């Protein structure tokens, strides 16, 4: 039996309302298509999506990341763009892993980004890389250090300009070994309590155990901790031979300042480092020995040109995070130009042939095919004597490049045995 619905039910039925909404949506769509300027702009440009933390304890570094990518895009567009098309750069604050993930999704879905570049937090890197892999879009990590990103969590769509924790540890480790700070010594660790810190501490302990040192304490420090006095007292109590910072972002500033405040006599240094946060410690406070991926004193022609262009645009020298996002953008643009394509498979294929890339260092680098890590020189950094300091950015003395000129570049990188990576199919 069929019943005719009462007219009133039809009036209040949900269907017409949905139709109205659909109609509105269609109208909006037509309206969008009806604006040829926008469509034209989209067809003529290639969108690069940039994500990095601008707030929180990594915010200071993210600001430099944005400057680096802006300068790179400006230079590329100035030189004619990529395959004759200009780059349309979009940048946002990645905030935290959950937000980073949804923003990456939006870049790909809404903005049709051809590539995603950036990030500093290892935890957010993982989140973005999962979105990138699912959508088959290349993501170049410019600041996440954790080895796990290159090993356990690696995937074919993620490349790493930032050094792996192992590269940092082995670079500064060689200097520490030379200075007698590891063999037979007791080391006290302060470790940032999140993905990056945990990973760095794990890698560092392996290195120290392999070289005859002993880690007597490993204190996990919350990322938003700004007071280190309780840790300073604990260090004083335990009387280690060496104090090691596995800290990140603003933590490093506070650690260096308060270490100087308490005047502890033990030599110190770190396995992770960013120049900007050390600048924040100021002269007279900065000390110790640290690893560094790049520094504005690196003496090569391309590096000097980058520093000069950066100072001209932003009025201050670039920090290593600016280098990372600049180099990442330049290498991606080169891959697109050489393959005459913005297709992810083409870009990956290009990099996996391991072409030599200018990365503003003495020796050229390359993305290693099996884990997509940029294989490159690293440096060490020590404090400049206060009397020689010229300005607020001139606190550091840059050591020799590691590995030395006669060693293969990948001797400091994680080996397949240390950090196996098999790309998910």
């Amino acid at each position, binding site marked *: 039996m069929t019943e005719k619905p009462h007219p009133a039910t039809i009036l209040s039925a949900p269907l017409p309302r949905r139709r109205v909404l659909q109609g509105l949506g269609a109208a909006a769509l037509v309206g969008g298509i009806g604006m040829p300027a926008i469509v034209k702009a989209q067809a003529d440009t290639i969108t690069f999506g940039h994500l990095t933390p601008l707030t*929180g304890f990594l*915010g200071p570094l993210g600001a430099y990341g944005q400057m680096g990518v802006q300068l790179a895009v400006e230079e590329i567009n100035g030189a004619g763009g990529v395959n004759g098309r200009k780059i349309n750069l979009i940048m946002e604050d990645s905030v935290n892993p959950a937000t980073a993930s949804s923003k990456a999704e939006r870049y790909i879905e809404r903005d049709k980004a051809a590539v995603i570049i950036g990030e500093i937090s290892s935890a957010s890197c993982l989140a973005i890389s999962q979105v990138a892999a699912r959508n088959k879009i290349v993501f170049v990590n410019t600041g996440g250090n954790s080895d796990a990103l290159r090993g356990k969590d690696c995937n074919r769509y993620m490349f790493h300009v930032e050094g792996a924790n192992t590269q940092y540890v082995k670079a500064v480790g060689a200097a520490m070994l030379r200075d007698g700070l590891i063999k037979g010594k007791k080391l006290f660790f302060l470790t940032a309590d999140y993905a990056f810190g945990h990973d760095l501490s794990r890698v560092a302990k392996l290195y120290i155990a392999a070289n005859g040192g002993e880690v007597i304490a490993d204190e996990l420090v919350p990322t938003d901790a*700004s007071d280190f*006095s*309780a840790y300073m007292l604990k260090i004083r109590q335990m009387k280690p031979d060496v104090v090691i910072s596995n800290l990140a972002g603003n933590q490093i500033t506070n650690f260096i*300042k308060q270490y100087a405040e308490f*005047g502890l006599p033990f030599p110190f240094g770190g396995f992770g480092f960013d120049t900007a946060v050390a*600048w*924040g*410690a100021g002269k007279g406070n900065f000390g110790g020995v640290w690893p560094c991926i790049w520094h504005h004193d690196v003496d090569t022609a391309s590096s000097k040109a980058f520093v000069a262009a950066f100072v001209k645009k932003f009025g201050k020298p670039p920090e290593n995070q600016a280098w990372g996002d600049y180099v990442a953008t330049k290498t991606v643009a080169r891959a697109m130009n050489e393959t005459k394509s913005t297709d992810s498979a083409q870009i990956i294929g290009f990099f996996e042939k391991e072409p030599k890339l200018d990365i503003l260092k003495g020796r050229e680098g390359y993305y290693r095919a099996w884990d997509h890590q940029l294989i490159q020189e690293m440096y060490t950094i020590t404090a400049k004597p206060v009397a020689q300091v010229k300005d607020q950015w001139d606190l550091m003395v840059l050591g020799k490049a590691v590995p030395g000129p006669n060693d293969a570049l990948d001797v400091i990188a994680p080996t397949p045995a240390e950090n196996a990576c098999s790309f998910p199919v």
Partner: protein
Amino acid sequence: MPLELVFLIEQLLNGLLVGVAYLLIALGLSLIFSLGGIVNLAHGGFYAIGAYIAVEVGNRFGFPAAFVAAPLSVALIGVVIERVLFARFYRADPILSLLLTFGLAMVIEQALRMAFGATPIPFAIPQFLRGQVFIGDFIYSRYRLAILLVAMAAVLGLWLLLQRTAFGRVVRAGVQNPDMVGALGISLRPYLTAVAAIGIGLAGLAGVMLAPISGVHPAMGAEILTAAFVVVVIGGLGSFWGVVAAGLLVGVVRGLTVYFLPPAAEASMYMLMLLVLLVRPRGLFGERILRFE
């Protein structure tokens, strides 16, 4: 004395020093809330402004000038903010003032970021306060002892102001029963402004005092604000000594947690707050304030 005990006591005393720093922020927060009913989420922002003013003034005219200039100018900013913004929300739904100060906090942080950059700015301990003081087995940073003195003076001064002056009597009456104060022919308006100036000025004072030991960066306010709120909640609203006790307690508990269970250091104060709220929802020495019941 056995060495273990020495270190334990050392952590205890250090915890008190840390707590004193929280105090400067928490007292102002509590004061502004008690009288005006405004939960000032922008309080951390004023602390950050204090630190930046300290850097700018300190680098040109030395630390003593910064020490005077930072709290005063931040208090002045506080007066303007109170007159222009807070004043419109005293009688409004608390959710509105919450949104207002939340937005203000973000505006301040972003303004600092745009004006000074996101990177931490160096600011050192003044030469005459550098170094350590050794008392027996104990080590103290000379600068932190200076913070202790300044904070103690501020707490004492504030207490005297509230307890021993005509001004303080009106403020305390206003906290308990603003309508009655009005009925007696006393307008609370100037008192509300003065209290905001004092509370926000104290945040500026904390800014100049902490700038040399912690990084001066735009998000520094957000970092310390949560701790300050926890202190206010534990201490109990409207209770002067409750907030003082809670500040010290939080510092000590945090110090001891670093000593025994470092990964829980930051969580310890929240655990403490949870415990206090379960046992005494009004806070340790919280008074019964009729209009908030």
